[in-house]
């Protein structure tokens, strides 16, 4: 691992070059994506279902292997990383999921602590030997997401919004240099969705890191995002500030216009 840099000095956080992904040969879902993330804050990725937004995020932490291209992160090419190096890179990338993806039968606090698994041996994990520092951080994070009194409950006893808060706490627990969120609000009601976005905004500001958020709701996206990326058919069709998005762009991204009111 390279020398730890101060995030403030960092010129860019993540650079995606000509990223391509084909699930079946000759049928690309990502057709050459170029994105350069240079500033902290929320970057919203909008676009219709099936356009490759989830695939893009999962390529970044290599839950999916890209077919071609480069993902430059922390002085390494994520596309080439393997084994222990890949795991070390992964632990610096926090991910929040649409369906929360908690381990339901574990307690809330233990779910937050699983964010540290990348820093522990399996033997330590088995004996639940989390360091005192990690335990303190986990409780602080639970406090920050407002779930202190639920710490010892099982994760499956929480509501959707509460589970997503745990999901965010787990991702931040990794002490990541970037956050990825795949439709974090799609399963939630409008009020909770805003609260979740506020949390993502807050953590990305506190940690001074970017948060790439896939999101359906264009209004919600433009409210929180510093930058919007519009995707359609596997390519980036808009990349700029949320104010710059026009109805023309939205038509191009989603197709049709009857939904634009």
């Amino acid at each position, binding site marked *: 691992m390279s020398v730890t840099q101060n995030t403030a000095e960092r010129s860019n956080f993540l650079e995606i070059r000509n990223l391509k992904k084909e699930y079946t040969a000759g049928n690309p879902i990502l057709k050459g994506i170029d994105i350069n993330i240079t500033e902290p804050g929320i970057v919203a990725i909008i676009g219709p279902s099936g356009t490759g937004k989830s695939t893009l995020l999962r390529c970044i932490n290599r*839950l999916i292997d890209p077919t071609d291209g480069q993902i430059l992160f922390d002085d390494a090419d994520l596309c080439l990383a393997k084994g222990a190096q890949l795991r070390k890179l992964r632990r610096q990338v926090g991910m929040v999921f649409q369906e929360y993806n908690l381990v339901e039968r574990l307690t809330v606090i233990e779910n937050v602590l699983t964010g540290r698994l990348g820093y522990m041996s399996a033997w330590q994990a088995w004996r639940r030997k989390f360091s005192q520092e990690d335990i303190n951080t986990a409780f602080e994070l639970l406090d920050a997401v407002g779930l202190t009194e639920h710490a010892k409950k099982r994760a499956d006893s929480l509501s959707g919004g509460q589970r997503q808060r745990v999901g965010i706490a787990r991702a931040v627990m990794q002490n990541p240099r970037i956050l990825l969120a795949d439709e974090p609000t799609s399963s939630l009601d409008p009020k909770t969705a805003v609260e979740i976005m506020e949390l993502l905004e807050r953590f990305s500001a506190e940690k001074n890191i970017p948060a790439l958020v896939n999101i359906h709701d264009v209004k919600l996206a433009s409210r929180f995002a510093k930058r919007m990326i519009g995707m359609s058919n596997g390519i980036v069709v808009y990349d700029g500030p949320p104010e710059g998005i026009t109805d023309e762009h939205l038509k191009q991204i989603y197709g049709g216009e009857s939904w634009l009111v």
Partner: protein
Amino acid sequence: MNTIDHHWQRFTLKQKLSRYAVYLVLVIAFVQSIQSVEVIPEFLLDAPEQMADMFSRMWPIDFAYYPVAVHDAMVETLNIATLGTLITLIFAIPLALMNASNIVNSAWCHWISRFFLVSSRSVNSLVWALLFVSIFGPGVIAGVLAIAFRSIGFVGKLLGEAIEEVNMGSIEALKATGASWMSILLKGYWPQVLPAFFSIVLFRWDINVRESAVLGLVGAGGIGVVLDDSMNLFQWDRVAMSLLAIFVIVILAEIVVVNIRKRLI
């Protein structure tokens, strides 16, 4: 107003024909098997009388025989069942992991594990016991191994299926934290499989208590030996004692298993 008759049928003609073919085969098989069994009507008519005679010989139950021989044999039976089940786990867990397609993604591994799981299941525990008696001689070891080897297929298959039903979202999330393969196994798969694991193991133990009760018939230790001896000597009151002991133990095992399972889930 002209309405169009929509045409709909649950099955196509081909499906219907094949269904009738299956029914036909079932009927033929039934008739065939009745014929080949060659039921002797005299013996069948005689049966109630014979049964009454046997029960009269069993009564009164020889309770005094319990401390003499039944108790120790019963404890031995429980030991065989428990030890057998524990030894099963040593083999069944790795085979279950190998057999789960969401853990090992290799057709070779699946075939190897399936081969062992199916071999284990296709041989009855009495046959396993005969094999091990001829290797280790009569006694408890043969019984323990017979129970263990018969259970591998059962536990391994069901455990493998339980692993495949795990919510892969949680696994994906742990993978994304940079956790190692072993950590994911321990913190992602294990908590999710745990209730099924104990259900399966307890259920198998319950079956094994019953199975180990008959293993003695082929000399593999336990209450079966006592049962066999009493039968050979026509001491039906002692046979009744052994059967009663088995019955009570099976009921107790059932109660224990149900209670533990309730607490786990």
